[in-house]
């Protein structure tokens, strides 16, 4: 129990920006003779000691070195700020991870709440969105003949920008960063295209209500929540999928779009051993899973038994019949349990968190963890973050940031916040990753091959220059006093460099920046140039 004693010892330390909830967990643990609800010590054995990477302090607490802390924060969050690194030098890694893996449903944080305020209208219900986001202007409303004509009076552009800013603000300021990172991971895994049809009215609820609360939970629950959400039902056309039938205007039948992506992208993977017949049969199982739209309902999931195909369907050699809505649910649960699904998800997680070339040993261990823990993501992520491949020296800085990770990590590095406008979302579009606007169901790629190109780099240089001048980027920040008052250009670059980059930053980068900064006169100009070059540096493109 020596580690427990050292955790209790933490109570006496002042921990800046540290999470009150963790302190209460610690307080409870220290005051109790029973084993704590979260068995920290058990996980400590699996903490990254296998390759001896972790610093063993005199108190034998699993504290991380500065570069280890930066590595963890680069992968498990949207990017480190100096105070996050300081926190991890005082709080054991396992305790930090426990805290990140058990966030409260509603995050109560004053800074986040205030920052979200300007975008709160984007979280209204569909009918309220239509009422609120009306185009203003002298034009009288058209005679209410066609629904389409009526809809064209809605300012969808503003609605979508506010929606994007709502999500970007959470990614930027939430203390529960791992949940935001996983929400982003799943939002791409279960991609929807915000511009398609009425998805624009439900995409915020899709992220906020279907994905985020389940981002760290059991995979089958998340899978079912996405399958039933109007955003997915509309995006992949299941809302119009009905049993084979003749109508007055012709024939109608099942739509295979959702079933195909469910098998190929959401669960088994393209090499998952299913065939076209499985796709067709799965589509029949989901006939009748639809959406009740306005004006009858606020875009809610509805099962319509009258258009559900009650015949027998065989998917992956298992029969589904006569169970109505339950057939689809049974199929989703079976798919979530399938070893190919475990392997597919493990591969994608290892790609996201470890390396584009996912290490086979990591994929194997994460697959096993998934199957053993019935897809419980908290356990799967513990396996991932304690895996030797995650902590290898060669893993560090080996991932190329996506535009989203680049932009948010820049803002987090300087402790910036949105200015209440929507320029930050527009910048993401300029950088090539307009949030929730990927039309194809694969979502945005997390791999260097998708983003490491000349046009992408040039747009980042441009972003860095605008960001540093606090011009048109929509992020406000102040330099800390130690940097704002630094008159020596060499020290300025060293200090700001230490805030943004790891200790291993190359001499080439630092001297190239210092040379240019030193040739400028004003201190404000020097700070601006130093920041824009640091954000543009080869090192800052990596995480």
């Amino acid at each position, binding site marked *: 129990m020596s580690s427990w004693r050292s955790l209790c010892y933490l109570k006496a330390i002042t921990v800046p920006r540290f999470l009150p909830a963790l302190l209460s967990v610690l307080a409870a643990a220290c005051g109790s003779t029973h084993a704590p609800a979260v068995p920290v010590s058990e996980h400590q054995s699996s903490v990254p000691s296998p390759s001896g990477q972790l610093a063993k302090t005199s108190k034998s607490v699993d504290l991380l070195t500065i570069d280890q802390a930066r590595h963890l924060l680069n992968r498990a969050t949207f990017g480190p700020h100096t105070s996050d690194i300081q926190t991890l030098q005082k709080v054991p890694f396992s305790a930090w991870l426990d805290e990140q893996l058990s966030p409260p449903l509603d995050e109560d944080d004053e800074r986040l709440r205030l920052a979200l305020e300007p975008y709160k209208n984007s979280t209204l219900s569909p009918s309220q969105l239509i009422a609120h986001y009306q185009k203003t202007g002298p034009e009288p409303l*058209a*005679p209410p*003949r*066609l629904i*389409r*004509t009526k809809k*064209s009076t809605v300012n969808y552009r503003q609605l979508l920008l506010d929606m994007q800013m709502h999500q970007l603000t959470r990614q930027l300021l939430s203390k529960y960063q791992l949940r935001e990172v996983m929400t982003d991971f799943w939002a791409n895994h279960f991609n929807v*295209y915000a*511009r*398609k*049809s009425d998805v624009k009215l439900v995409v915020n609820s899709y992220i906020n209500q279907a994905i985020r609360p389940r981002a760290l939970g059991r995979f089958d629950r998340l899978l079912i929540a996405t399958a039933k959400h109007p955003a997915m039902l509309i995006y992949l056309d299941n809302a119009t999928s009905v049993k084979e039938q003749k109508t007055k205007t012709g024939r109608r039948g099942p739509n295979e779009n959702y079933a195909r992506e469910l098998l190929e992208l959401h669960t088994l993977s393209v090499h998952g051993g299913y065939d076209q017949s499985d796709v067709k049969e799965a589509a029949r199982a989901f006939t009748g899973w639809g959406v009740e739209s306005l004006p009858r309902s606020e875009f809610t999931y509805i099962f319509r038994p009258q258009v559900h195909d009650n015949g027998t369907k065989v998917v992956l050699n298992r029969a589904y019949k006569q169970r109505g809505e339950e057939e689809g649910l049974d199929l989703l649960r079976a798919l979530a349990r399938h070893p190919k699904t475990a392997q597919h998800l493990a591969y994608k997680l290892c790609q996201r968190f470890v390396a584009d070339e996912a290490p086979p040993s990591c994929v194997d261990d994460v697959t096993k963890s998934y199957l053993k823990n019935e897809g419980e993501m908290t356990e799967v992520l513990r396996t991932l973050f304690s895996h030797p491949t995650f902590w290898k020296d060669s893993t560090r800085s080996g991932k*190329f940031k996506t535009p989203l990770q680049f932009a948010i990590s820049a803002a987090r590095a300087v402790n910036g916040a949105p200015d209440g406008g929507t320029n930050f979302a527009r910048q993401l*579009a*300029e950088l*090539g990753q*307009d949030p929730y606007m990927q*039309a*194809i169901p*694969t979502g945005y790629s997390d791999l*260097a091959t998708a983003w*490491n*190109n*000349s*046009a*992408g*780099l*040039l*747009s980042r*240089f*441009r972003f860095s*220059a*605008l960001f540093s*001048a606090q*011009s048109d980027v929509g992020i406000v920040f102040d330099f800390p006093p130690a940097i704002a008052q630094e008159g020596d250009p060499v020290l300025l670059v060293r200090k700001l460099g230490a805030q943004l980059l790891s200790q291993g930053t*190359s001499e*080439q*980068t630092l*001297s*190239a*920046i210092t*040379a*240019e*900064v030193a*040739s*400028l006169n004003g201190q404000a*100009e020097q700070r*601006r*140039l130093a920041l*824009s*070059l640091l954000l*543009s*540096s*080869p090192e800052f*493109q990596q995480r």
Partner: protein
Amino acid sequence: MTNPCLSRRVFLQSLCGAAVSSVSPILSASAPSAQDPVLVQLFLKGGMDSLSALVPYEEGTYFDQRPTTAIKMRGSLLKKQRLDERFALHPGLSALKPLYKKNHLAFVVAAGLPQVQRSHFDAQDICESGGGSQIQRSGWMARALSSSPAQQFDAFSIGGSASRSLAEHESALVVPGLDHFSLPGSDSERRHFETGLLGMYKAREPSSGQTALRLNADLEKIRQNYRGPQHGAKYGSGSLKGDLRTLAELIRETPSLKMATVSLGGWDTHRAQGSTDGPLAKRFAQLGKNLAAFVRDLGPERKRVVVVVMTEFGRTVRENGTQGTDHGYGSMMMIYGESVRGGMIHGAWPGLRLRDLTDGRDLPVTTDYRRVLEELRVGHLGLPPNESPFDFGELAPPGTGGLLQAKSSPPLDT
């Protein structure tokens, strides 16, 4: 002018300048020739009403179905705008009439997707990705360009956002217009920033950083040396003005350019679209004036260029209750180029009899838009016929063939 650094071709200066002397040239030093063909895709987003652009003035149905929005083609207007015995050009597009008379402009009627798709974004994405009924992962231009080795400066999306047509083409560059492209800040700030960037990226990974800086240097030189439209070209208004001005200059200065995309929105005319005047007529005027100015601006370079104008779908034959038209199906394509078999209207015209309309409401499609793009890809760009970026399924209607003059256009086997 023996010193190459004093050449008119401004990109050479960047190769001679101190800042980038350590890097190899991106651009060929030779002047572009007719052997460096360029294909420009001008996408009209929102579903352009082809029945207003190309008025079927002999069809009674057209006037019956469109009491307020039909273009009343008679008398002097008809005489001025008449293209042939069936069609007349919207007066807003009259700037294009001389190109048609010179046989450099052709139209393909009833062109569109092989399957009905009435969602803007799906239809646009299918078109730009070169699909039939499904959105493809990469853009059609990206797949077309993959048959030759990747080259810097071979593809541009003009206008601020990456075109879906170039998705997954690694060297595709988004150019938001010459006025916006450069790095921000004063000249001095920019110089320090660029020198710092060069120092950081010199001989370093990712090598895309160095390439980006070379592109930046070249584009910056192009920008600084830009002398405005050439050959007396007078552009019209709207976003197309800046985009096409930029593109004309880039075509002059970048012999490696093969494909470029430009788009113009605002065609979704559900209400009060007007007829000879009104919002749609204004949009046509922007298109017509700017496209005609672009052709003029290109000067001798126009020999290298073919422009294809397309949209995601046409609009309903019948006007709706709000003096507009709704999402339809068949539309038209417009092709400009000196190698085009212009001065004529290609494609089979299905007519507007109600019983012949798709779903009883829309102009059918008789030419798969991909057949047109494929013919230009092979005939104009000279890319290998057996490496088509399109997967023509059984459903695809045949193409027209013969869009280009015989020497450059092998017959298309449909």
